[in-house]
């Protein structure tokens, strides 16, 4: 029994404060990404989510250069990019273009400042931290900020839940119902930016998109009740995160020995497996339904 446990969890897993911190933080950002991801998929804004995280990455690189907590770089640049996209792309077809333009600016800035980071601060770790996250090295003060942001964004989502849903289905109908669709859109994209950037800090700006879209896309195959979709999506995110952390910790014993594989590698892979599995499950369920109906 002990032997199996030791294979599953490398020695020291449960004693390590960093690991416990990572599990808690990882769960929080995975759950929030999962919930908002359902709306992102419904509104077809996954591209926007990706652009926001990369713009945030550029901000984080600048923050690193001037010696500020990278979280502030992520948040400020992410929210700024979100607001820009919302104002540049008022119509659906423009939105795609606006997002693409923001994304390319983001990548340019990010690569420039990451270069400056390694060049001027002498720390070669900057690109790794920003692009692939710092899940094991997040300080206690940052944890507090992330918890605060999570509670705030969760409350805002609850408040705008119904108008958001209605305007995601059909903006025109929402307007005739008296919903200020513009306001809802802006509030939504700011909330999205905050969640994406929290996630970027933890899992890295390159891979926060995986947590945002993957679990939601997988959950959509299980159920068509929106609350269950959000719950499943959050759960898939959390489980992928936990397994990713366990594997990453264990991977110190894998080749190349003593190096450890990044959490940001395992998480998207696991999410992808979940997605494939759920697609298959959805197909099987559908086939069974057809047989029953016949």
């Amino acid at each position, binding site marked *: 029994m002990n032997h199996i446990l030791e294979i599953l969890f490398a020695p020291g897993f449960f004693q390590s404060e960093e690991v416990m911190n990572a599990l808690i933080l990882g769960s929080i950002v995975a759950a929030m990404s999962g919930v908002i991801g*359902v709306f992102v998929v*419904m509104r077809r804004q996954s591209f926007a989510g990706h652009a926001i995280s990369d713009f945030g990455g550029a901000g984080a690189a600048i923050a690193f250069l001037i010696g500020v907590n990278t979280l502030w770089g992520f948040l400020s640049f992410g929210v700024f990019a979100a607001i820009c996209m919302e104002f540049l792309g008022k119509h659906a077809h423009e939105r795609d273009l606006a997002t693409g333009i923001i994304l390319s600016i983001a990548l340019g800035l990010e690569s420039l400042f990451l270069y400056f980071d390694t060049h001027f601060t002498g720390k070669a770790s900057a690109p790794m931290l920003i692009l692939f996250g710092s899940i094991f090295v997040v300080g206690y003060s940052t944890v507090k900020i992330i918890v605060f942001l999570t509670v705030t964004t969760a409350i805002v989502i*609850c*408040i*705008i*839940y*119904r*108008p958001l*849903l*209605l305007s995601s*289905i*059909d903006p*025109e*109908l*929402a*307007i*005739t*119902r*008296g*919903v200020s669709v513009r306001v809802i859109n802006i509030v939504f994209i700011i909330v999205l930016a905050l969640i994406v950037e929290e996630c970027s800090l933890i899992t890295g700006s390159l891979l926060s998109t995986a947590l945002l879209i993957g679990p939601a896309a997988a*959950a*959509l*195959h299980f*159920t*068509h*009740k*929106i609350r*269950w*979709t959000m719950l499943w999506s959050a759960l898939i995110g959390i489980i992928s995160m936990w397994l990713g952390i366990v594997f990453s910790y264990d991977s110190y014993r894998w080749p190349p020995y003593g190096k450890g594989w990044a959490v940001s590698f395992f998480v998207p892979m696991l999410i992808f497996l979940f997605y494939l599995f759920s697609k298959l499950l959805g197909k099987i369920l559908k086939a069974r339904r057809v047989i029953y109906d016949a």
Partner: protein
Amino acid sequence: MIESNKFKEVNMVLSTDNICVKFDDRYVLKNVNLKIKSGEFIGLIGSNGAGKSTLLKVILGLLTPDKGSINMFGKKSKRGNRLIGYVPQKVFLDSNIPLRGRDLVALGLDGHKFGFPLPSREKRRHVDEILKAVDAEKFADSPVGKLSGGEQQRLFIAQALLTDPKLLLLDEPLSNLDIKSAYEVVQLISRIARERKVAVMLVAHDMNPLLGVMNKVIYLAEGKAVMGKTDKIFRDDVLTSLYGYPVQVLHANGRIMIVGGQGAMTAGFPIEDHCHPSEVRK
């Protein structure tokens, strides 16, 4: 006298006074005068670009006319009026959108409200009642994205009826439907209008499916409108003066077809036998 005036006002759903809407320098609506009383079934007929959507926007309070005024239920029109139920033109729903039929309908009741909704028996009863009224109980628990266009349309009609409106606006509900489904939808709407005593304004480019059920027709062309009983509107002289171009109304088996330009009566006009594409019966 005062009594009868009061009575009139209570019954008036909508009245407009010389509405004009201009985009740039072009009139999209020009001196439009309409009166709709409660319980009336009105067909708003016109081809593409005649100003139908603009008129709908004015009624829904999304657009303020450049000139003239509109009066809804004795008040100025405003956005989000609970007394108007609106059924949008075809909404494209993703096939795996995480909503059941009844969730979509329920949004008609409280979709504009803030706060996380808690399940309530009262709300469920209300939604069930409306679902029954539009014959949508069978597919109420199915995912909306997997339903047919006609079924989705019933749900959108249901969500529009939840607030117990006095005017039901339907934007082109018959386009995209085959002849049989179009007939069924018209019957359904007509029944609802009678049962729930709601005035209906149905936008269409073909008047024929509506001929048996509509009380009055609003015919829009070139931004101008005429309104009245069908036999008063579908006449050569009325439509000719509306279009400012010779037009003939052909009757066949109780159906109507409108053709532009015709031999004998159009002396002085080029002979042209074109039939408006949207008026060709399918």
